[in-house]
């Protein structure tokens, strides 16, 4: 799941949208990744964990972006 989330933020960043909210991420997971295993309260929980691990950062508008550590993590785990 971390990979899918980081991939979303990475692709967004590539398109020039550094920060994104969780509603857009939720739609991506459902309609693009077709993965409904971690949505709603669980997704919120997962994002908190990823912030604690410094894979994601949050701005003051409750929007999130991938950190350099997140990019590194994605590179290392992209084959999984």
């Amino acid at each position, binding site marked *: 799941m971390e990979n899918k989330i980081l*991939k*979303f933020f990475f*692709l*967004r960043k590539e*398109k020039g*949208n550094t920060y*994104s*909210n*969780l*509603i*857009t991420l*939720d*739609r*991506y997971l*459902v*309609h*693009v990744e*077709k993965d*409904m295993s971690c*949505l*709603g*309260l*669980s*997704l*919120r929980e997962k994002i908190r964990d990823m912030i604690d691990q410094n894979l994601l950062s949050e701005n003051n508008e*409750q929007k999130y972006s991938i950190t350099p550590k997140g990019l590194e993590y994605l590179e290392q785990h992209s084959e999984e």
Partner: protein
Amino acid sequence: MIQKSFQSLENLKDLDLGDYLPVGFKNAIEYLLSLVSQVNNFVELTIEIFSDLAEEHFKLSNAFICGLINGLIELFEFIFQIISFLIGLDGLVSVGYDDLIKKRYQLEIVENVLNFLFKEVPLLLNVFLDLAKNIKDLNFQELENIFELFKEIFQGSSGKLDNISRYQWAYYSGSIIFEIIVGIVLALLTGGLGNAGKAAGTISQKGSKFLKILGEEFISAITFGASDLLSIFSSLTKAFAKACKNGFRGFIEWIRSLLKRNDKHLDEVLELEEVVIETHKPLKSYNPAEVKHFIKDVNFHNHYGLYDLQVIRLRAKLLNFTLVELQDFVKTGSLMKIKKSSLVKEMEFFAKQKKNKFALQKPKSIKGRHSQRDFDLNNCGGEILNLDWKNIEIFEEGFSIVKSHLERFESVEANRKMIKRLEDIIYGKIKPTDWDKRFYTHEIREYRRYKNLGIEDGVEADYDIWNHTHSSTLEDYKIYELDENRNSILYHPDIKPEDFDY
């Protein structure tokens, strides 16, 4: 001359008020016709009263009354300019039908402002008439004293008003009250800076000079909006009417007290009270026929029969709903074909929420039976209903709700494309598919849930709120977001993965 100007407005009677005109415009024209007749009556009565006056007294009194009427008209112009400024209606007259649809909310405000102002006019005309009746008692020396004060304020040391005739000062003395009203409104509106005055023409330029006199101690901390403007206007006209009950003496004393401030706080001087504009009035202030008319208009699918509407209306009255709240329920209820019993239950839920100032309830997390999503059942904007998306039609009004609701979220190409599809369906370019119907009903129901949580249009709530309302809406329609081939059930197959803006 005034009567002649207003008489020309009587031609409005000959205007064909066909069905194509929006109700708001028809009402405005009817109000204008009633205003014309009231002003004509006022002028006729004034002429009768003045006929007994000696020539000099007649001329001065005439100038004074002309000042009153013109001041009133300029004040209305000023109010409309400020309202237009506040709600962003600039350039409305040159827009097309589509833009008018988009500006519907603003137009409703304008309609309500018109209704409000037209109700104030008879009060003011009665005050003028009382003054006219007492014109024989008018002490011109006292009026002259007021005018001296007026000159001091307006011209400072420039001396521009020194060489004007007695008739001119009588005219200015009539319009002075409106100058003061404008000055006070501007002081409140601009926080003392007078910037908004630039948009308001001659009267406000004069009025803005009052800012210097009114000073910073009068500047209220209120966040100024259209209803605040009307509130102040209403308070001023009521205070003006009250003062004029004592004839010219009262009129002059009140103006003097305003100009001198008497070290009172503005609220005390104006006796400010809460004034609620028409759309926010409780239902009990309307007659049943009016309410029936308003809710019939939003019963799009004729989903509710006359008896249903009667039950809904009476319950809304009991719950102390405003007209807008009731209309909203009937509108979304009819678009989604919600049963009367469920609608009434939800109205009761909404009233309870409103009473609690939409405070969050103790959470109750569940996994949706159909959606398979985790969400908070106690904070999702109402109970889960048994709704059907299949037997609905896509209406322009529903489309507007969908569009307005989606505007609160981060813009995503997939939503834009679905909006375009709904628009094409309304214009008959394409036939509605199951995806369109599911998307349309889902967004309207989600919008209703946002409303039930007290979240106004355009306000983007956080992910949790969206998840609770989104998931519970999926439950309402018994939807899992992916079909057996893992394709989206809400977004049309034409919507590509890249449209989700990753």
